[in-house]
């Protein structure tokens, strides 16, 4: 049991807060964008919300630059000893560590909502990550009843990258009028046995988060295959981010 600071801007952050509490951790949540675009917190100074009793920082944020790129020239001392687990939707762990003056206490992780159903979680040591941080990450996810699986540091990990690509492809099909959102989802569930249709899954993950993964992949690989579907981007602009905002590809009255 430890004191965990959970910071984030999407459904995964909210869900992992509950999972951490259920497993006996003391949790301090710090969320933005809970019900859509949150213009009041453009930048988050983690140095000011972390406390001396914080044992671990779990970050599940799409807009990482708002959390980790706003410090002064000195790496804040208070952050040097706390393992920082950063969700690799948009940048690699190596990249985030670089923002923090190549701090060795940064490690990447990846998962998708619904987190409750996940049995395994991806963890990705960056080039700078030390052994103690890796062990802390492994211990933390094990304490949540999830098996930590180590993979190479990269943007999007395995599951988020594959699912975001499926969602993007489904969004293009929708935009091109190939079929309705409901028919696309039914087809993928019945034709391929996916656990969710890609568009309903996007609504659970958060369209803002899905767009973040695709933009992160575009940036990391510079390849056209990851360019986000324009209709996905439009929905994100409009604040239709999925279940948590009452509207995404579907409406949630």
């Amino acid at each position: 049991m430890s004191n965990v600071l959970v910071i984030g801007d999407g459904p995964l952050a909210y869900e992992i807060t509950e999972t951490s509490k259920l497993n006996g951790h003391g949790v301090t949540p710090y969320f933005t964008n809970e019900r859509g675009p949150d213009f009041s917190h453009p930048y988050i100074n983690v140095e000011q919300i972390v406390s001396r009793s914080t044992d671990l920082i779990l970050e599940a944020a799409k807009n990482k630059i708002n959390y980790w790129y706003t410090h002064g020239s000195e790496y804040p001392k208070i952050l040097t000893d706390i393992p920082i687990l950063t969700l690799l939707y948009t940048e690699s762990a190596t990249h985030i560590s670089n923002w923090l003056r190549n701090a060795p206490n940064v490690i990447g992780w990846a998962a998708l909502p619904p987190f409750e159903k996940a049995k395994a979680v991806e963890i990705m040591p960056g080039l700078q990550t030390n052994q103690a941080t890796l062990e802390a990450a492994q211990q933390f996810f094990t304490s949540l009843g999830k098996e930590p699986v180590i993979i190479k540091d990269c943007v999007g990990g395995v599951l988020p990258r594959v699912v975001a690509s499926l969602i993007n492809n489904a969004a293009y099909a929708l935009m091109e009028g190939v079929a309705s959102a409901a028919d696309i989802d039914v087809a993928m569930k019945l034709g391929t046995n996916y656990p969710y249709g890609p568009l309903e899954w996007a609504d659970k993950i958060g369209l803002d988060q899905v767009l973040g993964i695709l933009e992160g992949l575009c940036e990391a690989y510079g390849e056209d295959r990851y360019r986000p579907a324009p209709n996905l981007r439009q929905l994100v602009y409009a604040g239709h981010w999925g279940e948590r905002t009452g509207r995404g590809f579907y409406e949630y009255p």
Partner: protein
Amino acid sequence: MTIEHIKKIGVLGSGTMGAGIAQIAAQSGFDVLLYDINAEILQKAFGKISGFINRAAEKGKMTREEADIAIERIITTTHLPNMAGCDFIIEAVPEKLELKQSLYQELDTITSPEIILATNTSTLSVTQIASITKNPGRVVGMHFFNPVPLMKLVEVIGGAISDEAAIQTTVEMAKRLGKTPVVTKDVPGFIVNRVARPFYLEALRLLEEGVADHATIDRLIREGGGFNMGPFELMDLIGLDVNFAASVSVYEAYFHEPRYRPSLLQQRMVESGRLGRKTGRGWYEYDEGEDK
């Protein structure tokens, strides 16, 4: 022709898909005329179908009497003009455009123009198949999934020149056959074979990049995401050659859209002859007789 008037379904082609379609049509209460150019293949298909239906009766899924009636409903023929008596025709012959087109031209002279011709193509354009027929409006796509008796989905494809009424009747027909229809435009891969491509292609990219080995990727997709099977397990089941050909076909059909670019690594696997379960080895190794 509206759905109420359809009593007899013609099925062209008695391969895996055609036989499966004939089976569910008979089980759904239709008279079935199953056609194949090859009498031997046709007899084998009929044997298989009656075997499946008999087994279903033995398992208690239907009564002995229902099974006997279903089997009796299926008549086989190698004589295409016999299709004249059918109210709805489903074509499931091999995926060769010339073959399908010549068949549809013959059907032009055999069948009356209000009979719907539904093609079970998965890779060809419905519009192109229809284009050379006299009444292209009656040609609709009806894409079943393998194994037909188990898979609930049917993609109903409206070609660029399909009649709206023909599309609607085909949707109703899919429901009468116990399936869940979805309506899609005539685009390469329709919905499923198009939208599913990244499931394989991104997994292959992750493997090529060395992010994780194939077994770890499969595990993360299954245990992290709740999928029944990982992409590499699924490729082994489908056959790497079949899966690779589907990727190449979609990639070509979308004029080299980068989202569909096939994998070089997968091509090498196909070249090596490690095609999956059917050859005993693909991404995984399979012992003989093992059902993995």
